[in-house]
């Protein structure tokens, strides 16, 4: 319990620091938001009135707390480009990016865990060595190039999907999920390769420890030792990595959305930065950063459930 509270406090402090950083970063950007909203032809009286209304004349720290309050209560400002509330704009995009991230994560798990265990179990066989080489190659391919290769192979040559033919989840959920398959695969392949290698290395190094020899000497079979004893300990570094991966996927989806023309958070973020639509950019960055911090917290909480030594060590 104490461990959880301490990690929770750390998470809150990190969220406050991250939000302060995001707020300050977007507050020091040259250019006046009131002028940007009204246009350069607006009179100075109008601009001043809007500045007053937006609270821009108040001290920075007061504006920060106001921003946090507004953000938590769902008031994220108005987009300069779309002239609509940022909240409404983001509400449509969030399910798309979340689906992309979660499906990619699921693919990473489905690919890396079984393959990692198999290649560790049969580490001296030729196929395991071949997997090592393939793995190394996949790790070096950036997700956006994987996306381009998949688009060419499955989209243009084999016609398994229509490149750029995104279907909204509102109109046809099945077609939406089908379109998401290849973008998710692009994100998942390099990460799955990394996590598979990590699991393999972790299982192999655990297998050399004394408790494994003891388990064998008590008459346990290979599978029993592997699944009951080794895997539980070997998974700890992998879970840390997967936690970091999930955070990376959320950020990595920004690029993949661009490759596959998916109208999610990423595309909106890029266009908002290019068009200097800062309320939108600020909100998206704050949300993604918040998601990342919460994921890190969840990974921290998960540790002691798998390895009680972590909790003991932390409490000392």
């Amino acid at each position, binding site marked *: 319990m104490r461990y959880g509270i301490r990690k929770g406090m750390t998470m809150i402090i990190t969220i406050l620091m991250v939000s302060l950083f995001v707020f300050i970063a977007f507050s*020091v950007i040259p250019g006046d938001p009131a002028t940007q909203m009204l246009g350069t032809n607006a009179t100075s009286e109008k601009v001043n009135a809007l500045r007053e209304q937006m609270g821009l004349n108040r001290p920075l720290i007061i504006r920060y707390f106001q921003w946090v309050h507004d953000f938590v209560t769902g008031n994220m400002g108005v987009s300069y480009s779309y002239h609509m509330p940022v909240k409404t704009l983001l509400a449509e995009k969030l399910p798309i990016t979340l689906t992309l991230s979660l499906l990619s994560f699921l693919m990473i798990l489905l690919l890396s865990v079984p393959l990692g265990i198999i290649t560790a179990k049969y580490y001296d066989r030729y196929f395991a060595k071949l997997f090592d080489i393939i793995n*190394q*190659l996949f790790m070096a391919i*950036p997700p*956006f190039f994987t996306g*381009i290769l998949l688009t060419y192979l499955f989209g*243009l040559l084999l016609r398994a999907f229509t490149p750029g033919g995104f279907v909204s989840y509102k109109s046809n959920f099945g077609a939406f999920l089908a379109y998401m398959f290849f973008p998710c695969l692009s994100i998942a392949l390099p990460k799955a390769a990394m996590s598979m290698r990590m699991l393999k290395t972790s299982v192999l190094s655990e297998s050399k420890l004394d408790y494994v020899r003891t388990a064998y000497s008590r008459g346990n079979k290979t599978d029993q030792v592997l699944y009951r004893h080794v895997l539980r300990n070997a998974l700890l570094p992998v879970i840390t990595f997967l936690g970091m991966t999930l955070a990376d996927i959320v950020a990595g989806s920004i690029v993949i959305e661009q490759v596959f023309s998916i109208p999610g958070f990423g595309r909106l973020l*890029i266009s908002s930065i*290019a068009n200097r639509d800062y309320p939108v950019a600020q909100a998206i960055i704050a949300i993604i950063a918040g998601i990342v911090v919460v994921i890190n917290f969840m990974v921290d909480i998960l540790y002691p459930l798998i390895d009680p030594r972590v909790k003991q060590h932390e409490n000392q």
Partner: protein
Amino acid sequence: MKINKMNGKMYIGAILLILIFLFVLWGIIGTPYDPKAMDASMRLAKASSKHIMGCDQFGRDIFSRVLIGIRTTFTIALGTNLIGVFFGTLIGALTGYYGGWIDQILMRFNDAILSFPSILLALVFIALMGCGTYQIMIAMGIVFVPSYARIVRSEFMKCRNREYVQSVRLMGASDLRIMFIHIFPNTRQTLIASLIIGFNNAVLCEAAMSFLGLGVQPPDASLGLMLSDAQAFLFSAPLYALTVGIVMVLLILSFALLSDAISEVYHA
């Protein structure tokens, strides 16, 4: 690090890197064609003896642009890591050596920044400074500072109470001298390994940012920007994307293999 400990990964990584470095030099000395010269008659021309990788949508020689692109990517990765290492070492050395409340505050802030995915943080700085080659170098450099600071800090914390440090302290050496003449050289092993990983990450991050149109701006060339251009012509000129992508993969692979090999040698 002894030569006999070198493994296959080290050889392949080093050969690839030397090859790429030769291409960088080639790009500096001169390219076969002017990388910015357009020729409408050669639009999306296929590979031939004259243009070994073909021509892009403006009839520019792709091979010449790849040479310039590798040079740009390399320069940005180098600049990024220099900024990261310089400021990271400074912060890490001070916090690791002195400890105390400055260390606590700076490291909490450091951790908060590290919890940001690097591409997202780079985007924040790009929003602040605008797009362009120098902007992306500075943005990514700032992004890299916290991780270098953490690495150097932990090395300094390990060394600050060692006997050799206590000896020079007793001999009356100043803190700055102890930090940068005595302790800093002992961090080189960890720092070199981190630099290779940092270089790899910088190449990936630059490519992603330029691919998004927020890094290097046309008519300059970078591998990410070229790949982004090539994507639009994937059906009519697939080799354009393929060649640029393969060069990028080889660049990343060379650093990845080297970093793997070095960590294997250190942990052997």
